[in-house]
Each structure stands twice: as structure tokens, then as C-alpha cells.
């Protein structure tokens, strides 16, 4: 019976994220599972790595950190796992599926505004009648948003909560609400906000711990995976990370 589970998972996963990893299996490729929020930056980093190691190939699958972790747990084969949700993937470590891991970059929360939305300052988000999209509390961006709301003036936090019209299971969906004009504001990662050019961005009034990305080399991984992880965390990749909106620790 356990052999059936990946199929069940795969089905839910595909429907849920609508992200399809496909292509033929390549034995020599480094298999990377990456959080979907890395979709815009990781290809550039991998290209850059490929210049240093001629002939290396990659097989990258993007998805929610949690979904990918579940897949690995259920036997999906991967060498490197880049994820956005340290608390929630602890299970992999406890199940001895991870051989090494290191922190990579952080991603902070911002508020994006619909063009023409009647919002000037952060406090305006509490004005009645606005429509605000946030991530579901279960997903990292939603958890971060909840931490932010908890750190705000309770009255403002309550007013903002009253304006929430959707708790999206995916940060890109939340972003699209504003992009499509359906919502007036959305709490999203700075990196996601950077993918849409003409949106106004509000910075946060209080500091909350940003979202930490972690890279993990998985058990029985291709030896090249550790080298690749070093490169991803190293100085060559840092400017690529920063240009995409990520903060790289130890640099300004």
C-alpha cells in the first residue's frame, strides 16, 4: 500500500500547485527540489554554476516547500532541496533524510498596492472597505504576515484583518489579486513584488524576522550536490540573489 502514496500525493500536488516538473530522467543530472519562490532567481544561479563546471546538468522541480518535503518523505529522489520553511521541514532532519544543510538568504515581507488604490501609508490598510489578500496561515508568507500583524498596534491589526478577503495558498496567487486589480493590497515577499514592474510597494512599519531560505543536501545525494550548494551560498551567486530582491547575510 505505501507504494501507492506517491501517486496520491502527486495528484494532490499537481492540482494544488499547477506546477509540472517534467522531462526524461537523466542519471547524471543533479536533482534539485526548490521552493516555488525561487523560480525566478535559481535558473540564473544554475547557469552561472554551469559556466564553472562544463557538462553539468540539472533537473529542477519547483513547488511549495511543504509539498516538496512531503514528496521527499514519501520517497521522491532528490539531491538538493532549497526550501523556504525551516520549521515545517524539520521532519526531514528528524527522519535522517538530510546529510547537510546551511542557511542561504532571507526574503522579507512587503505590501503591494493596486494602482489607484486609496492607500498612502501603512495605516491606511485599516480603512474599512478595502480588500486585502494575504497568504494562508499555513504557508510561509502567511505565517510571516500573521507574525507581522501580531507585532502591530492591535487596533490596526484588527482593522486590517477585517479587510482580508482571501487567504491564498500560494504567494503568487495573492500577488495576482493586486496585479489583476481584484484586491487593493496584498502581503507578499519583496522578491515576488519585484516580478511585477508597476506596483507600488509599502514597507513595513515594524521589523519582523524575515523568511529564511535553507539549502539541504539530501541523504545519498550526488557528491556534486554539496559543491553546488556551496556555490549557491557563495560570493558569485550573492549579486544574483540581491538583484532578485533577496537579502544575503553578511553583505549590505
Amino acid at each position, binding site marked *: 500500500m505505501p507504494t501507492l502514496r506517491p501517486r496520491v*500525493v502527486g495528484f494532490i500536488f499537481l492540482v*494544488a500547485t*499547477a506546477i509540472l516538473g517534467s522531462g526524461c530522467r537523466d542519471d547524471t543530472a543533479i536533482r534539485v527540489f526548490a521552493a516555488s519562490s525561487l523560480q525566478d532567481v535559481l535558473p540564473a544561479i544554475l547557469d552561472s554554476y554551469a559556466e564553472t563546471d562544463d557538462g553539468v546538468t540539472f533537473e529542477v522541480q519547483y513547488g511549495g516547500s511543504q*509539498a516538496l518535503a*512531503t514528496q521527499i518523505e514519501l520517497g521522491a529522489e532528490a539531491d538538493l532541496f532549497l526550501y523556504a520553511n525551516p*520549521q515545517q521541514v524539520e521532519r526531514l532532519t528528524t527522519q535522517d533524510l538530510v546529510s547537510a544543510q546551511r542557511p542561504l538568504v532571507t526574503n522579507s515581507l512587503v505590501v503591494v498596492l493596486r494602482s489607484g488604490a486609496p492607500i498612502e501609508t501603512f495605516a491606511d490598510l485599516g480603512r474599512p472597505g478595502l480588500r486585502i489578500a494575504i497568504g494562508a496561515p499555513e504557508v510561509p508568507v502567511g505565517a510571516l504576515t500573521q507574525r507581522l500583524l501580531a507585532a502591530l498596534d492591535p487596533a490596526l491589526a484588527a482593522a486590517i484583518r477585517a479587510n482580508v478577503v482571501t487567504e491564498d*495558498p500560494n504567494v503568487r496567487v495573492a500577488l495576482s489579486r493586486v496585479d*489583476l486589480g481584484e*484586491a487593493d493590497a496584498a502581503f507578499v515577499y519583496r522578491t515576488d513584488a519585484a516580478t511585477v514592474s508597476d506596483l507600488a510597494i509599502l514597507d513595513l512599519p515594524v521589523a519582523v524576522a524575515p523568511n529564511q531560505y535553507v539549502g539541504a543536501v539530501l541523504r545519498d545525494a550526488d557528491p556534486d550536490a554539496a559543491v553546488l550548494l556551496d556555490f549557491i551560498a557563495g560570493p558569485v551567486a550573492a549579486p544574483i540573489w540581491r538583484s532578485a530582491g533577496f537579502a544575503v547575510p553578511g553583505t549590505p
Partner: protein
Amino acid sequence: MTARGRNWWVIPPVLFGLFFLLPLVGLAWFAITDGDVAAELGSSTTWDALRLSLLTATFTLVLAVVLGTPLAYLLAASEAGWARLTATLLDLPLVLPPVVSGIALLTVFGRRGYLGDPLAEAGVTLSFTTAAVVLAQLFVAAPYYVRAAYAGFSAMDPRFEGVAYTLGLSRWRTFRSVTLPLVWPALAGGAVLCWARALGELGATLLFAGSLPGRTQTMPLAILSAFESNAGLAGAVSIAVILVGFALVLMVLLHRLSTPGGAYR
């Protein structure tokens, strides 16, 4: 048995049946061993989502039947090219990925959609409301009903109605007493499909209606959220099993309805 030889032909259908049965058994088994169905049954989020799902799917079905039956009848009765074209167009939502259907709905009913301004002026806001959930389900699921009803009406010999008219029965009385009973199995089958599809609708609902517990978070969206939570797969599967359980009971009831005791043949 020996005289007829061995019935080897039954093997493929049995395997095919298992192909459907085993994943469902696997799901249930996984929910029992790894999940916590009891905890999810005690969760108000689950009940909110379940109630919302049953409510919206049923309302969707009612709308599909009330609006779709005359449409299917009209299309089946007309031999004009536009009728066949419309019947084909109605199949399109079956092909569209639901997420695309959600976007399609936004282009019309969204705040910036073609009807956005007139709707806003009329004081109607659709997106992020329960009504939007119903509209999304209707767009995705109603074609299943209309398709089945269209096939049913098309298959019926129109001379039954002709005879009824000559017997003095009005059009409405003929439809009620002759046409409807004759196509009833097709309509009921389509209704079950429509309701089931509405119950499982995810993509279009997420895009068009959003996901807010109690208002727009239906069971599939709750499952998706649970999947992302610490409970992960186990939580998602536990809720899924509850949904499947309820759906099973209601489908059995609907099937009863579709083959009433008064059935002929």
C-alpha cells in the same frame, strides 16, 4: 465453465476497476493510519468548509438545472448551425484548466473585467464572495449537466411530443408528463456529475472567489491549505476522506433518485 472456456476477457476490466478502487482504499488507509480524521471532524474550519461546499455545490446544481435544462432542450430541438456551435462551445469549460476558467471569469466579472464597472455601479461585488464560489462552480460544472441533458433530449424521439400535442397536451404539460420522464435518466446522471464536479472544484474557485474560511474556502481549498500546514499530507488526506465520505453518501442518494421505483424497462 469448461464448455465455454475460461473467461480471460474479465481480467482487463477487473484490473481497470482496481485502478480506481485501490487509490481510494489507499487514501482511506492513509487517513486512518497517518491522519487524524477525528481531529479534523472536530475542527470548525473543516465543518465550515464542508458546509460551504455542500451549500455551494447544491446551489450550483439548482442553477445548472433551472438554467441548463431549457438551454439543452432548445439546443437539442434546433437543427440550426448556431445550436450545434453553442453545444460545442459549452464543452470548452470541460477542456479548460480550472485556473484558466477562473481567469476567464475575472476578465468578465472581475473588478477590471468587462462587466466590472456596470456591476460596481449596480452595487454588486462578486469577487471574494460566496456568490463568486457558485459562479466559478457553475462555469466549470454546469457543462457536465447541460451536456448530459442535451444528449438526453437529442436522443429522445421528437414524435413522442408530436403525439402528445395532438392529444391536446400543452407544451408545458407535454414537457412535464412526457419529455421529462423520458429523459430523466440522462438528466439525473448529468446532475450527479455536475454536483460532484462542483464539489471538487478548486482552481476556478481559488482564482475567482479566493479562499477565506467560512466565506469562500470550500473543502478542496481547505484540503489545499491543510496540505501546506504542519499537519501536511496527513491533514489534507484526513479532510479529503471526510469530503469523499459525505460525497459518497450523497451520490448514493442521488443515484437512487436517478433510477426511481417508477422506472420503466
